[in-house]
């Protein structure tokens, strides 16, 4: 390992510009003549729009235009789409309601887009919006799954009269029922996976620009996948053909999934730019972000585990209801189905699994993928069940897990996934050692002496990432392939530009990807630049989500580098006047086998371009190669997290005292960046478990619409983590990488809740475990501890 090569904890190259305020985000971009958009949003969760009167507003100073759903319809702007088709149990397709970019005839959640005011300044646009008169016919709202599915509930979309989007299942029901029939013990749990608001530091923003001379559009947008945005805006929404639409996602300040999707605001900005003949800019404020960014999670589940002799798991039955919100967001339908249920086997050998998922429309913001997307929900189900089953069987929860671990690979689960490599016991054993689980009882006694309740909780998570084999996801309903692309451009002096379809919005690609290229070509790190986020510069790519940039994005780079090396060897053979078969390449040097002749990478690159040493008919000049990588399998990061905490029973306040995370991410390029991803993920998971929760009242008003009411995790809510790693390389990609971006958020919520319930001695607590809930739940535990 070199100081900057694969495996080195290189400081992030991009951080200099971020911490000196030189990042260039969408809000930093201003186009000449730009006007500002303000969206008038629905104050009602469910209402017909009888009439919109803009006449007074249009007379306000600075107003350029006011556009409504009628204008969108008249221009035949296509609706926002959901790109994953799910089929019902009976084979019929899901019921996707139309989603116009500006509401047409009806609003379906508080924050829905009613009209856009475009004015010389944002303040003028906002002032004018207050003069728009909207005649609403308020309808009964359903803010929860239960109220939406109640008999007689008002239909949110005509196509789904009972508000059911789909009723889907997976697995073998007969086999699962048979397993339960022979069970010695059945563990049952009712589980709520709370609704979260993603809250990336940078809110969403868009600048739409239209150039009349070339009849082409440019959209600057906060996107995790600019090419997918262009595809959807071209092929489905119909803004312009792809060659007339450039989408740029410059520096993006976090996404966590919420910037995968194609939203109304950027659609309107780019469409309106031509309509009003001015660049149009919109930047979300924090309240708009709470109201209109796609939320995450929101499942209600009943789960059962069948157990045989010696704590062996025989089967699993899971019934989940998922809240989709008022419209199906871009990938919403896949999250509670294919990103969820196939992970229900966890790290365990479970012979039979049957899961049913009902997706429901409600009058709330759309729900889509959020860090982990489906896998945190699955992990919460299986890891809560495992812990509770162990307790009910009076077994040590670690031992219970060990007995059920998958130990032979490959392992085919009953729910699609074929685990390819792992050593689950190694992670558990290391985590127990690092955590000093043996010392827990002594620590518990010390806490009890101080009047505190101490608990410990495990979570042995697995996730499927590196998404995904295109043909496989296509067969499951995906509207796109999930390969990745790369182009390697070697410049004449031997510096290199990597054009990647991945997109970095906090992950550190400019560093990690450069480490790969620098190691492979034997050139200094600073000679490598990573280019991403611009559809005019970079070939079609699929973007970043699902922990795929390492496993899929870098694999495409490796494939392109293979081609570069092959071509460069041909050039080197001419430069060194040797047979191509005798050329070897190592540490940035081409040598001729058995001689001391050599040429460095820069010399060969230069010769590729000046092309003096070879015949241009036999060998093309230049050194530039591209590749597409389509994975053959998902990757399966897995590991064990252990949370230990103390409860103050007088107030219900929880202090996390120790956290140990041992992850198997396969091979690691930059351990510092990977550890950072783990830290951030745990913070988000602890946030879900203890602090965060989006709350709508019965009428569909979002009560938690600012940081004064929605509790984000802060540094002082978190302990210092012990982070360890085990490695089983991933067999399905050239670097052996599994992915690390979501693991922390997937693993941590059940570890926290298992620790709380361990401390309390009962299972009656829901997320977020706020001080009041914990205080109420602790009353019985206090009585029990006093009795002991």
């Amino acid at each position, binding site marked *: 390992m070199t100081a900057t090569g694969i495996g080195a904890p290189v400081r992030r190259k991009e951080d200099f510009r971020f911490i000196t305020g030189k990042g260039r985000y969408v809000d930093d971009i201003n186009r000449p003549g730009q006007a500002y958009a303000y969206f008038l949003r629905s104050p009602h969760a469910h209402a017909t729009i009888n009439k919109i009167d803009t006449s007074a507003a249009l007379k306000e100073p600075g107003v350029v235009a006011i556009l409504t759903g009628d204008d969108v319809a008249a221009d035949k702007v296509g609706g926002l789409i959901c790109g994953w088709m799910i089929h019902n149990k009976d084979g019929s397709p899901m019921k996707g309601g139309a989603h116009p970019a500006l509401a047409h005839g009806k609003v379906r959640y508080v924050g829905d887009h009613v009209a856009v005011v475009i004015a010389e300044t944002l303040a003028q646009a906002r002032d004018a919006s207050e003069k728009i008169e909207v005649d609403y016919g308020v309808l009964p709202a359903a803010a929860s799954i239960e109220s939406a599915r109640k008999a007689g509930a008002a239909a949110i979309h005509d196509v789904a009269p009972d508000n059911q989007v789909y009723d889907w299942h997976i697995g073998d029901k007969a086999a699962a029922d048979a397993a339960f029939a022979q069970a010695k013990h059945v563990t049952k749990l009712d589980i709520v996976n709370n609704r979260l608001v993603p809250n990336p530091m940078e809110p969403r923003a868009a600048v739409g620009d239209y150039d009349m001379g070339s009849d082409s559009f440019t959209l600057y947008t906060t996107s995790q996948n600019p090419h997918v945005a262009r595809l959807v805006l071209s092929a489905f929404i119909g803004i312009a053909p792809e060659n007339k639409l450039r989408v740029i996602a410059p520096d993006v300040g976090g996404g966590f999934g919420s910037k995968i999707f194609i939203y109304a605001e950027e659609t309107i900005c780019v469409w309106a730019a031509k309509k009003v003949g001015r660049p149009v800019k919109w930047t979300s404020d924090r309240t708009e972000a709470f109201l209109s960014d796609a939320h995450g999670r929101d499942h209600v589940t009943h789960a059962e585990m069948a157990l045989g002799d010696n704590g062996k798991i025989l089967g699993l039955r899971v019934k989940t209801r998922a809240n989709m919100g008022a419209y199906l967001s871009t990938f919403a339908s896949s999250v509670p189905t294919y990103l969820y249920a196939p992970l229900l086997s966890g790290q365990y050998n479970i012979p039979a699994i049957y899961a049913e998922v009902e997706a429901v429309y409600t009058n709330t913001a759309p729900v889509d993928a959020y860090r982990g997307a489906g896998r945190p929900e699955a992990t919460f189900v299986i890891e809560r069940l495992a812990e509770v089953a162990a307790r009910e069987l009076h077994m040590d929860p670690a031992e219970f897990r060990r007995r059920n671990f998958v130990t032979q690979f490959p392992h085919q689960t009953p729910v699609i996934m074929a685990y390819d490599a792992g050593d689950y016991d190694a992670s558990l054993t290391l985590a127990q050692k690092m955590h000093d689980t043996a010392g827990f009882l002594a620590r518990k006694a010390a806490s009890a002496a101080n009047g505190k309740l101490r608990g410990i909780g495990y979570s042995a998570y697995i996730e499927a990432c590196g998404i995904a084999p295109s043909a496989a996801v296509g067969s499951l309903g995906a509207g796109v392939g999930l390969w990745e692309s790369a182009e390697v451009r070697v410049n004449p002096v031997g510096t290199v530009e990597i054009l990647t379809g991945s997109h970095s919005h906090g992950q550190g690609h400019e560093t990690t990807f450069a480490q790969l290229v620098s190691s492979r070509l034997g050139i200094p790190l600073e000679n490598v630049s990573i280019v991403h986020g611009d559809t005019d510069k970079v070939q079609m790519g699929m973007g970043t989500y699902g922990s795929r940039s390492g496993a899929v994005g870098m694999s495409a780079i490796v494939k392109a580098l293979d081609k570069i090396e092959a071509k460069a060897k041909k050039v080197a053979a001419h430069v060194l006047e040797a047979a191509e078969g005798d050329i070897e390449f190592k540490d940035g040097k081409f040598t001729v086998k058995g001689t001391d002749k050599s040429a460095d990478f820069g010399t060969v690159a230069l010769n590729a371009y000046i092309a003096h040493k070879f015949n241009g008919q036999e060998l093309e000049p230049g050194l530039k190669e591209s590749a597409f990588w389509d994975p053959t399998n998902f990757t399966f990061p897995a590991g064990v997290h252990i949370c230990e905490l103390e409860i103050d029973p007088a107030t219900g306040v929880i202090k996390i005292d120790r956290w140990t995370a041992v992850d198997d991410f396969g091979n690691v390029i930059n351990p510092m960046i990977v550890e950072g991803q783990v830290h951030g993920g745990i913070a988000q998971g602890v946030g879900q478990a203890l602090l965060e929760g989006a709350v709508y009242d019965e009428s569909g008003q979002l009560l938690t619409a600012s940081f004064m009411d929605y509790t984000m995790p802060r540094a002082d809510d978190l302990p210092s983590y012990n982070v360890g790693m085990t490695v089983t390389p991933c067999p399905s990609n050239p670097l052996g990488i599994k992915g690390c971006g979501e693991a922390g958020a997937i693993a941590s919520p059940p570890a926290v809740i298992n620790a709380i319930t361990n401390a309390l001695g009962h299972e009656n607590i829901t997320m977020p475990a706020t001080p009041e809930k914990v*205080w109420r739940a602790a009353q019985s535990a206090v009585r029990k501890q006093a009795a002991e």
Partner: protein
Amino acid sequence: MYAFTHHSATSIADAVKSVGEGKYLAGGHTLVPTMKQRLAMPGNIVDLNKVAELKGVSDNGGVLTVKAMTRHYEVENSPVVQKAIPGLAKLAGGIGDPQVRHRGTMGGSVANNDPAADYPAAVLALNATIVTDRRRIAADDYFKGLFTTALEDSELITAIEFPHADSFSYAKFRNPASLYAMVGVAIAKKGGAVRVAVTGAGSDGVFRWKEAEDKLAANFTAAALDGLAVSPSRVNGDLHGSAEYRAHLIGVMAKRAMGA
């Protein structure tokens, strides 16, 4: 935010003369966000930040005077406050986060009388006097309910005077999202008299808990509060905590203020 005029006042007299129907701007940590959300729409803002006579802390051996524009950070770190009423410096150090403490002012906080603010509990427990451009108001006459005070339109708080106490302590249960007080209990003892003020929880804003005062006057120990509870009917409940939970926390925080 709507358009408004901005006047940077140079003196107390200038501020009071200029304010008219408008609003004083102190730290702006409450006023500016409400203006941005278009909930407050003053046409005229009189900025107090350059008024030298509204700044500073002094002590005459019996009374601590904190001028209205003194920031929470200054109260927290002032050796004068730390010596005179150390519990008040500590309270200031527990307000919000460092950004909030560097902007927010005591005058702004007391004028605003947010039911979850910390200072009102100290003002009430310490039996402080609110000094304005035109009169002196005793703490017991000053707080009039949620976001409501005895201040008249255009009346400017110039200082708060805190008589020294034999002991003063404050225990706060923070709202985990906003960091304001979900429950805060301030206890001051001076001679035989004990005053207990509760913030964050009262359905009518900060209030004195008379039952606790009586118990503590008889026996100034945490144990004296055993079994004493505030009725949840006096307490407000919201998303972050029910009335029952807050009422319970008042008892816990009172004991913690007593060192339990």
